[in-house]
């Protein structure tokens, strides 16, 4: 870390904290400017959205600086309740998530101005869009910085509520309103759970400040209760199966740059909350927690990717894929819990770092893919994959960046998704050190699920890329697609470059992240970069090593040599130089038209047949009167019928019972009030 020594004079935790404060102030400013703009519709594009970029930059700088210094700084603000001022704390964990928020927000700041230009001529309320975007960011930043349960919950609700308005942005469609309502409902149930978890801890810590909660002597049973509440609450926000139902409804309907923020960043804030409460505040980890988290993570990963594979709506597909990625993150967190409960702190740190790395990666590539989907939507007004095709030739840069996103999310070397998956596998492969035979046999099965998930992700995204960007255009809009404005390209380009950089130089990034497990768990990964920056050796050089730079170097070297050799040396000698263009061969059948191509539905058909039992599938082929046939396919989520509808029905029937109280007579109401008052007074005394 020669970089650190060089910059140490200018680096300090105080500067970092000031930068973080600046980010919060800028985010609020962006909200205020939008709200004050009134009819000046250009304000959103010229001022408010670029301000978001500045927020991102400040947050990123604050996060990276705090990680480089690796210390803790906290202040108490004279805000909030009289006896409960707001505590702010910037430690490595907050700093890491601050950086995650910052980097995606930066890209959104670059991308946003061109994207919102499209709304300027519409009827949508830009005031609401700008204002709530700013508040949304403020909320996320404050959640990460909060050092007491009170400020945490205020910020959490600010984040949830403002994102509700962003989901409901296109509220003219009934299904969007329904999605937004479902989101609001589940966000609040989740918020309640989190509040209860804090309540349990605070009962033993006698205060809501995290310092006291951390030191609270919680009995094991209550620690388990707090863990369960926190897991359900944060898991609901993170979209873990079976509490995921709101996510694929809510994320796609927001404007695309907001979708990128929601999927890329807000889900990470939920992960942050889970880590803060379970790893940091509760502290006394039991192995059963790890197994539960591992199992739910596996379920989410597998279900998420299968559901994504079935989708034809691009943004919905990306939302389901977020469920899958959060599943992977929780698999790694579960592994970490298992190792920590058995006192293998270093292995716990390995799995923990894998989870954090995947958080960062998912933020980058999911942000990139949502921005790409937004670009397609902007240029073709199309979200349905079965209408797309051939976009690579019409939007070459977007196509290239999207390809990087596809390769990263499919966990292919040398991109970043591969590194975090590799680390997770390495952690799982250390299961032989555990004493418990059952855990030793369960963890390999979890890694089998992870492997299957990774392979299915590749299928999903080959489908997306092959159908949307390759082949021929399937509809008129798509044939007229135009290049994206440079601002949008810059936002995607930034994320694409980072995806590659994080895949090639993992040792540097892990060197940065290492401060987090050192502070939270008490041990880092001393061996990860011990053999120099070229080599990633998480456990020891004998156990496993990966060299991203050398892999890239060799891939590029061999590839370019082959290209140059064949196209210049060899072809010159053999007197064939260029390629000749002609019609597609296609086994000599009629020249292929765009309707003869495989569609997204057709591409997924084999997998649908193999994994059909996971879904509720209605498929029928009917013959029309004119002799043409029509294929109908409806795939629905089994969890709706099994889990959600019974709960909805139960709520409805109990509401019907409660409704009897509503007699319409004022005196009866007053009577209830009196009874409640008396009852409460009785309880208090």
């Amino acid at each position, binding site marked *: 870390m020669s970089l650190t020594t060089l910059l140490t004079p200018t680096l300090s935790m105080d500067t970092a904290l000031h930068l973080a404060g600046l980010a919060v102030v800028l985010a609020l400013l962006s909200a205020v400017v939008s709200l004050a703009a009134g009819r000046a519709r250009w304000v959103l594009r010229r001022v408010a959205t670029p301000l978001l970029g500045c927020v991102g930059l400040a947050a990123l700088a604050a996060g990276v600086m705090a990680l480089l210094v690796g210390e803790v700084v906290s202040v108490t603000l004279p805000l909030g309740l009289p006896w409960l001022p707001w505590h702010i704390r910037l430690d490595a964990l907050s700093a890491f998530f601050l950086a995650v928020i910052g980097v995606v927000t930066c890209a959104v700041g670059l991308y946003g101005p061109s994207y919102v230009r499209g709304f300027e001529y519409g009827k949508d309320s830009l005031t609401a869009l700008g204002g709530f975007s700013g508040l949304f960011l403020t909320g996320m930043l404050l959640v990460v910085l909060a050092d007491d349960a009170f400020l945490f919950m205020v910020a959490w609700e600010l984040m949830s509520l403002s994102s509700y308005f962003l989901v409901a942005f296109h509220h003219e469609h009934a299904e969007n309103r329904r999605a937004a309502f479902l989101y609001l409902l589940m966000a609040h149930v989740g918020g309640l759970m989190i509040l209860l978890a804090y309540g349990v801890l605070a009962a033993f810590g006698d205060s809501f400040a995290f310092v006291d909660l951390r030191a609270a002597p919680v009995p094991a049973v209550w620690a388990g209760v707090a863990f369960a509440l926190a897991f359900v609450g944060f898991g609901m926000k993170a979209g873990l199966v079976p509490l995921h139902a709101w996510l694929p409804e809510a994320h796609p309907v927001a404007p695309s740059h907001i979708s990128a923020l929601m999927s890329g960043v807000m889900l990470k804030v939920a992960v942050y909350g889970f880590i803060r409460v379970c790893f940091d505040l509760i502290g006394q980890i039991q192995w059963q927690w790890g197994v539960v988290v591992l199992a739910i993570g596996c379920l989410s990963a597998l279900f998420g990717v299968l559901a994504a594979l079935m989708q034809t709506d691009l943004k919905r597909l990306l939302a389901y894929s977020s469920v899958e990625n959060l599943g992977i993150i929780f698999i790694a967190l579960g592994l970490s819990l298992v190792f920590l409960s058995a006192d293998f702190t270093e292995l716990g740190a390995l799995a923990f770092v894998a989870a954090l790395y995947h958080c960062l990666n998912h933020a980058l590539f999911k942000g990139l893919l949502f921005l790409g989907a937004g670009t397609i939507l902007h240029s073709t007004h199309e979200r349905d994959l079965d209408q797309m095709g051939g976009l690579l030739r019409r939007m070459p840069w977007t196509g290239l960046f999207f390809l990087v996103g596809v390769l990263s999310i499919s966990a292919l070397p040398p991109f970043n998704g591969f590194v975090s998956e590799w680390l997770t596998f390495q952690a799982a492969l250390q299961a032989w050190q555990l004493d418990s*035979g*059952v855990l030793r*046999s*369960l963890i390999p*099965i979890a890694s089998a699920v992870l492997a299957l998930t990774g392979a299915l992700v590749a299928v999903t995204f080959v489908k997306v890329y092959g159908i949307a960007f390759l082949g021929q255009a399937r509809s008129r809009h798509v044939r007229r697609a135009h290049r994206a404005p440079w601002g949008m390209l810059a936002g995607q380009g930034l994320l694409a470059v980072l995806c590659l950089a994080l895949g090639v130089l993992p040792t540097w990034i892990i060197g940065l992240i290492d401060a987090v497990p050192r502070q939270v768990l008490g041990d880092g990964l001393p061996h990860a970069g011990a053999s120099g920056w070229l080599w990633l050796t998480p456990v020891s050089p004998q156990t496993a090593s990966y060299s991203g730079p050398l892999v890239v170097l060799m891939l590029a070297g061999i590839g370019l040599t082959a290209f140059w050799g064949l196209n210049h040396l060899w072809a010159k000698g053999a007197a064939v130089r260029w390629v000749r263009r002609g019609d597609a061969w296609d086994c000599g059948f009629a020249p292929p038209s765009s309707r003869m191509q495989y569609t997204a539905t057709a591409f997924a058909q084999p997998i649908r047949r193999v994994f059909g*039992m996971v879904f509720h599938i209605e498929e029928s082929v009917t013959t029309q009167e004119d002799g043409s046939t029509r294929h109908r396919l409806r795939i629905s989520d089994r969890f709706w019928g099994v889990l959600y509808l019974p709960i909805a029905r139960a709520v409805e029937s109990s509401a019907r019972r409660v409704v009897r109280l509503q007699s319409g007579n004022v005196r009866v109401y007053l009577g209830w009030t009196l009874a409640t008052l008396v009852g409460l007074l009785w309880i208090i005394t």
Partner: protein
Amino acid sequence: MNLTLLPLLQQLLLVLAAIVLFLSFVLLAQVRLISAIHAFAWQGALVAAVTAVVAATGQVHHLYFSAALTLALKALLIPWMLHRLIRQLELERHTESLQSPALVTMGAVALVIFSYWLVLPMIHAEMTFTRNIIAISLSVVLIGLLMMVFRTQAVAQVLGFMSMENGLFLAAVSATDGMPLVVELGVAFDVLVAMVLFGVFFLQLRDSIDSLDVDRLNRLRETGGDSQ
């Protein structure tokens, strides 16, 4: 326990036991009845081989006899009888697929881990070798039962029953160097008689309900007062 320190015969024993377990999975998921019978025959042959190996390692001579008995009975006679039965019932090309094979297989894997978990605290850590084989035998028994739960075809159910017996025998041989010869003979005779009875039962079943699908037997339950 370190595998590399074990004598070669004991390593062979582990390999054979593992293959017995694998054949249980094959039996569970095998679609074609004929192939399932073959898998069962192989399982019997492997159990016989395990017995022979135990006899060789422990110098227990009466186990050679029970190995030969097992081979004759489980690997040859009973499969042959089942074959003949299937020919009589004209089921040679019969296939039967499970409702969701992946889930049932996952269930079987879960049973393997469960039996390992069950056996872990039961036996002293010094006897890891025996304990591990007992875990395998127990899972063979449980998978046999699982097969009887999920297969609807009567012949397949008999296969499940017989493979349970294989698992028990494996446990007996590997844990206690075999039962006394008299008991073993008795058990073998019982299995044989059971097989004959099953054969008669199948023919009767087919004659009376024209199918070997045991789900058809649901009709036999007591339906309260509204029956004729």
